[in-house]
Structure formats: structure tokens, C-alpha cells
């Protein structure tokens, strides 16, 4: 066992993943300035133009157009904004709530831990997608609903893992010393425990970015997430589905955007985990 771990070479930073994520963020922030067309600009005369490398395609619409002649590339760029906005809010909220509950459960133990752990159990015993259906049925659709659903699904991730880490940190000398020298509980939580779980939080957040994008795309694909005229990758796939026999690019291009973002965030997350915690490397 030991030999195997020692033999692992240091992993290189995933440059391509960083570049892909950088590009997605750039599209989200500055997309409207460099997108070739307006995302919702309808040009029926140019509807169903294939990508530029196919006959009939043109560089004016590099990735082709949809049934209404809207430019696919521009719509993917616009979709990045929605995906990133949802992901950032969802990660910040689920990470914040999950970490706060996880730290409290781990540090205070007893009844606090029992209540929070039971909540985690209940939440984890309800499969995510049916739960999302329930909230989709009662909340008004849109970004707010998608974020709410994701936060409700993912806070347990953070809470469970952070709780475990705090349980072991709590027994360490520096916490005991802080406690016997009279540092107050809130101070211990904020000054001594939180900084020690930040690495874990960063890894989880990076990994969650990809899965939030997939989750949001799934909801929007079902028509329960982001609503038109707002552009989302999942919604584009749903639109393209009806023209699957005539226009392959409609369901291919947005899917590639989803896959690339998710793949990049998974690879970056794996690398961060290995870098912060070489012991946990998968051989």
C-alpha cells in the first residue's frame, strides 16, 4: 500500500480545465460584448443554418442557427450567464448553510448534532429529482426556484463532510488549548475551526459547480427551470429535441457546453483535493 502511494507523481495543474472555466466565466460576465448576435434575435430566413463547416453553413453563424434563425453560438454564450449566476448563488448558499450547520453539529455535539444529523438523514433519504419536482410544482419557475431547489439538495453534502472534519479537529490540541484558555465558542468556531475546513469547502464548491450546471440544465430541459425568453443550455436542448431529425447541431452544441464546463470543474476539483490532501489520492 505504502509503496503505491509513494509512487504517485505530483499531478500537474489542469491548465485546460482552468482555461475552459475561465472562458465560461468570461462569457457570463462579458458575453453580450463579444457575442456575434443578439441571443434572441430572430431571423426566419436563416433558420436551421448548419454549422460553418457543413454545406450551407456560414461563418456568420459559426455553430448554426435554430428553428427561428437564432444564432446558436450567441445563445450558448448567453446561456453561460444563466448557468454561472445560478451556480454561484447556489454554491454560496448551500455551502454557507451546509458549512454552518456542519461546523455547529461537529463542535457542539449532543442535541445540536442529533437534530442536524437527523435533518441530513431525512434530506438524504428523499431522492433529489422527485424533491425538485415537488418544489417546481409549488414555487414560481425561474432562477430563484432553481437556486432554492439546488440549495435544498446540496446543503447536506457540505454539512455531512464538514461535520466529520470538525469532529476530528475538535479533539486536536489547539482547540483544547483555546477552550481551556477561555476563548468563547463563537470565537473558536470562527477563528479556529472555519479556516481549517476552508480547503474542504473550496474542493466541494469546485466539484459542485459542475453538478449544479448539470442539475440546472436537467430542470430547464424538463421545462421546470429557467423559462424563456431567458436562455439556458437545458432549454436549448429541449427546443432542439423537436428537430432532432433535421438539425443535429441543436442538441449537440449546448450539450458540449454543459459537458465541457462540468468536466473542467470536476478535473479542477480533483486536482485541488489531491493538492490539499495528498493522502486521499485515488490510486
Amino acid at each position, binding site marked *: *500500500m505504502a509503496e*503505491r502511494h509513494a509512487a504517485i507523481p505530483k499531478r500537474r495543474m489542469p491548465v485546460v480545465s482552468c482555461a475552459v472555466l475561465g472562458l465560461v466565466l468570461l462569457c457570463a460576465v462579458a458575453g453580450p460584448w463579444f457575442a456575434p448576435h443578439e441571443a434572441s434575435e430572430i431571423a426566419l430566413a436563416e433558420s436551421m443554418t448548419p454549422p460553418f463547416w457543413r454545406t450551407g453553413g456560414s461563418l456568420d453563424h459559426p455553430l448554426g442557427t435554430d428553428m427561428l434563425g437564432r444564432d446558436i453560438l450567441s445563445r450558448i454564450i448567453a446561456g453561460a450567464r444563466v448557468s454561472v449566476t445560478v451556480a454561484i448563488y447556489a454554491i454560496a448558499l448551500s455551502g454557507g448553510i451546509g458549512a454552518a450547520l456542519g461546523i455547529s453539529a461537529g463542535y457542539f455535539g449532543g442535541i445540536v448534532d442529533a437534530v442536524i444529523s*437527523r435533518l441530513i*438523514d*431525512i*434530506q438524504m*433519504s*428523499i*431522492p*433529489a*429529482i*422527485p*424533491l425538485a*419536482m*415537488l*418544489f*417546481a*410544482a*409549488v*414555487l414560481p419557475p425561474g432562477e430563484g426556484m432553481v437556486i432554492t431547489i439546488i440549495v435544498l439538495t446540496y446543503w447536506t453534502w457540505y454539512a455531512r463532510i464538514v461535520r466529520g472534519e470538525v469532529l476530528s479537529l475538535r479533539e486536536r490540541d489547539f482547540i483544547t488549548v483555546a477552550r481551556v484558555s477561555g476563548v468563547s465558542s463563537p470565537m473558536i468556531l470562527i477563528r479556529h475551526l472555519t479556516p481549517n475546513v476552508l480547503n474542504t469547502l473550496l474542493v466541494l464548491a469546485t466539484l459542485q459547480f*459542475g453538478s449544479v450546471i*448539470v442539475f440546472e*440544465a*436537467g430542470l430547464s*430541459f*424538463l*421545462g*421546470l427551470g429557467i423559462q424563456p425568453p431567458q436562455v439556458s443550455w437545458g432549454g436549448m*436542448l429541449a427546443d*432542439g*429535441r423537436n428537430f*432532432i*431529425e433535421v438539425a*443535429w447541431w441543436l*442538441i*449537440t452544441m449546448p*450539450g458540449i457546453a*454543459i*459537458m*465541457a464546463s*462540468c*468536466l473542467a470543474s*470536476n*478535473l479542477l476539483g480533483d486536482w485541488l483535493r489531491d493538492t490539499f490532501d495528498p493522502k486521499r489520492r*485515488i*490510486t
Partner: protein
Amino acid sequence: MRAYLIRRLWQGAVAVLGALLIVFVAQRLAGDPVALLLPMDASEEDFAAMREALGLDRPLPVQFVVFLRDAFSGDFGESYQWQAPAMPLLLERLPATLELALAGLVFALLLAVPLGVLSAVYRGRWVDRLAKVLALLGQAMPGFWVGLLLILYLAVRLQWLPAFGREGPLHLVLPAIALGWYPVAAMTRTLRSSMLDILDSDYIRTGRVMGLPERTVIWRYALRNAAVPLATMIGVYFANMLGGAFVIEVVFAWPGVGRTVVDAVFARDFPVVQAGVVLSAVIFVVVNLLVDLSYGLIDPRIRHG
């Protein structure tokens, strides 16, 4: 064992109760169901009468108790769309969903077992790399997109397999691949790492020294023990696939529970949505419970005292 069983049953019951509470709260968040049931021009008295008839004028805790009582007898009300009791409606479609999830699981295992074993045996070689790439892609490609690509290439272009509906075993192939696609990555990794540990162990070395053929050593002796961690995960994957089936059923027009619930969400048909959520939670809890209890059967070393 008995104490463990009681504890797990208790936890399962708490989880189901929690799910019911969430469903109840969500129902109240949805606003006044009476407004949906009555015509637009209904009078105040009509509203009051309807509320009383539905028990909505009573205090919330009482309503919750009534809701629980109905839920335990499987009564989630009538579907607005279908004019039929919601739970039986879903139970009727449950076999289609179970069939799909089972097929997805079989597909995942058919891919993950050989890949996991071979990538451990040929560690660092091309099979291992291929498995790694597949695992990365598997986790990054959402199932519904895989489904669309399968329809595009295998059903529309090549016309090898049917894409929509549930009319025979062939109709099961594409949805099963789309659904089973995701867990392949984690299954392969699990099996690979347990295989690596086992291949290092003494009894495997003994087997080799005794001159057993490598094939027998790997596929009979090593795999049998290495499969334990994977086997314990199967139930969890199966339960997750039942959730994943919601989206895949929509893609392939599969007449199961998931598609019915998604339709119900659009139609604001709350009884069906609620029954769907509770049904999934109950199945999820029961499957996980069975998995936990079967650990001891699969691996006698794990017996709960």
C-alpha cells in the same frame, strides 16, 4: 443484530415522516387549492363551503394529522387531470419505471465489471486509461443528453433501435443506456480499487504460486471478494436510478412514474406530484434498508452485533 434492525427501521420511519412533512409544507406553500378547484366566478360562500368540505378550515397540526392518516392508507387525493386516485395511478406505472431502472443497472454492471477488473489488472495501460476517460465523460455528460445523442445516432441516423415508447425489449435498450451511463464511472472506480487491494493479498499470491491459471485467479478468486464493496453500493445506485428515471422517461416517452409526475407538475396536479414524491422516498428508504441488512449476507465479516 436485533438492536441494529430496530435502529435502522426507526431511522427509516423518521425519514419517511420527514418526507411527508416536507410534502405537507410544500402543499401549503402552493397557495389555496380551493381556488384551483372552483370556477372563477365562485362566491365567498362557495369557497367557505369547499374549505370546510376539504378540512382546510381546521388548525394546521390537525390538518397534518389528517394528512398523515390519509397518507398511511395510500390516499393522496384524486388527480385533477385523470379524475382517479393519485397513488394507484402511479403504482400502475411503477413496473415500467422499475423495469427501466433495473435495465439501467444491468447495463451499468455489464460495462463497469469488465472495465473495473481489467483496469486493475492492467493498471496504467491503455484499458486503465480508457476506463479513466470513460469515467470522466460519464460524470460530465448528463443522462438526458446522452439519451438525445443515442436517439440522434442510433435511432434516427442508423435506425438500429426504437427511440420512443415501451413496446418490447428493444425499446428498453436506449433508455437503459442513458440511465445506466452515469453510475458506470463510480462503479468502475470502486471495483478497480478493491481489485487492486485484493490482487496484492496473500491468497491470490498463493493461488498463482500453486499454478492456477491467471484467468481463474482473477475472475473467480479475486473478483469474488473484490465485488463486495460494489455489491453493497448496488442498492444505492438502484435507488438513485429510480430518481434519474424521471428525466430519462421524459426523453424517451417512457410511460413510467417519472413522466407522469413531470406531466403532473405542468398541470399543477398536486395530488399526483405529492404521491410521486412520497412513493420515491418510501422506495428509496426501503431499498437502502434492504441494502444495509444484506451486508451481512454478502460479506459474513460484516455482521452487526
